[in-house]
């Protein structure tokens, strides 16, 4: 797998700490929703650092991808990507990587997406991929997030669920809720799984992405609700994503 040069063609702040970076990648072979890329930064003295980031954008043939990077306070790479990088800068990238945590356009079964925090990013690629190919696979998203201001892609998710009622979005706020919320802040629980996800008798494929503790907790709830463990795919991050 070769390193390719990529040019920053767009920057968009999603929240106070997360930024989407649009990249034009030379000879990009396209990707499958859910895959990630390795990004390499090199200092003037030759020192380099590599991190993996999920692709946020739908597969396409125009050689463009987007990644969304959450700035970690003590990160080595994410502060550079979210604060220093400018449109027109070049960086190196390789991929796409990963053949397991992916949604393919020929999948027709119901899909349950469960996101914890910035675990939404690869799941958003799946939602965007579904929309871009005109798939009618029924999608639901349960999105656990700290507070309303930390929601990624909120306007786009609202527009997609308004236009296309087979993408159903349920938010679970863990620290602070919007004013009109009927549920107090708290982590996801059995009640939310019962009301905010596909019932297990529909045999959905579930994709769960977030910090390890969130993924473990969500998996336990899904299995307790009757979902087969063979139908649950997971992607975990946290300490794996960045240097502490």
């Amino acid at each position, binding site marked *: *797998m070769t390193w390719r*040069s990529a040019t920053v063609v767009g920057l968009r702040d999603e929240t106070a700490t997360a930024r989407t970076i649009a990249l034009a990648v030379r000879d990009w072979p396209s990707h499958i929703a859910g895959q990630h890329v390795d990004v*390499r*930064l*090199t*200092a*003037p003295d*030759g*020192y*380099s*650092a*590599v*991190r*993996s980031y999920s692709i946020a954008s739908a597969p396409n043939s125009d050689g463009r991808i987007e990644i969304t990077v959450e700035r970690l306070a003590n990160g*080595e790479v994410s502060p*550079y990507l979210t604060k*220093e990088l400018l449109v027109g*800068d*070049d*960086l*190196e990238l390789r991929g796409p*990587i*990963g*053949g*397991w*945590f992916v949604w393919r356009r020929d999948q027709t079964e119901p899909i349950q997406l469960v996101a914890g925090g910035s675990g939404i990013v690869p799941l958003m690629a799946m939602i965007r991929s579904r929309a871009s190919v005109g798939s009618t696979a029924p999608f639901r998203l349960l999105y656990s997030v700290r507070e309303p201001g930390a929601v990624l892609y909120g306007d786009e998710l609202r527009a997609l669920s308004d236009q296309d009622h087979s993408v159903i979005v349920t938010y679970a706020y863990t620290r602070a809720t919007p004013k009109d919320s009927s549920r107090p802040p708290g982590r996801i629980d059995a009640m939310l799984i019962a009301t905010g996800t596909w019932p297990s008798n529909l045999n959905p494929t579930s994709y769960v992405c977030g910090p*390890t503790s969130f993924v*473990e907790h969500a*998996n*336990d709830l*899904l*299995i307790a609700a009757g979902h087969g*463990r*063979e139908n*649950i*795919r*997971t992607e*975990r991050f*946290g*300490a*794996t994503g960045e*240097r*502490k």
Partner: protein
Amino acid sequence: MAIISRGFAGRRSTADAKLPPGQYLTTDFPVLSAGPTPHIPLDRWEFTIDDGSNLLKRWNWKSFRELPTETITVDIHCVTRWSKFGTSWEGVSLDVLLADVKTDLSYTMFRSYGDYTTNLPLKDVVNKQAWIAFKFNGADLEPEHGGPARLLVPHLYFWKSAKWVRGLTLMPHDKPGFWEGLGYHIYGDPWLEQRYSDQ
């Protein structure tokens, strides 16, 4: 020719000298799994060795725990780029488990609860290179880290150290396990940075 990132300094430490290329040091113990964590009761746990047609060896938890154990302190390297130095384990050496298995087969497929598999050359799991570990830092291995027992084969990327291991199958030829069939390297040497299958 690398592209220089204007204004990127990075962060180095002297510990990096012990790191394989492209790795960074963590003091956490991150988790990487393809699916939910299985919970295996000890009274139903077993470890078996077969050659694809015949069962050669079988232990239950009690007979497995009667085998001689070793304490192992090793550095581990995950393909997702974290490395952790000086991890401490207790386990049974594969040399013990394979001691009276006579075979001319050269490859193994390790099998796990939850249907995960990973392939390894037999020569990589003998001669004090691999263990079935059941303790980490002196405590029983947590399910999310592979408990009750996991393979520990620290000289390769850590996905080869299969969690929730339940046995191994001896094979005449190498073939890809779970991650190896999904784009990861067939062998996985961190010092050669063998991360992906098509590199």
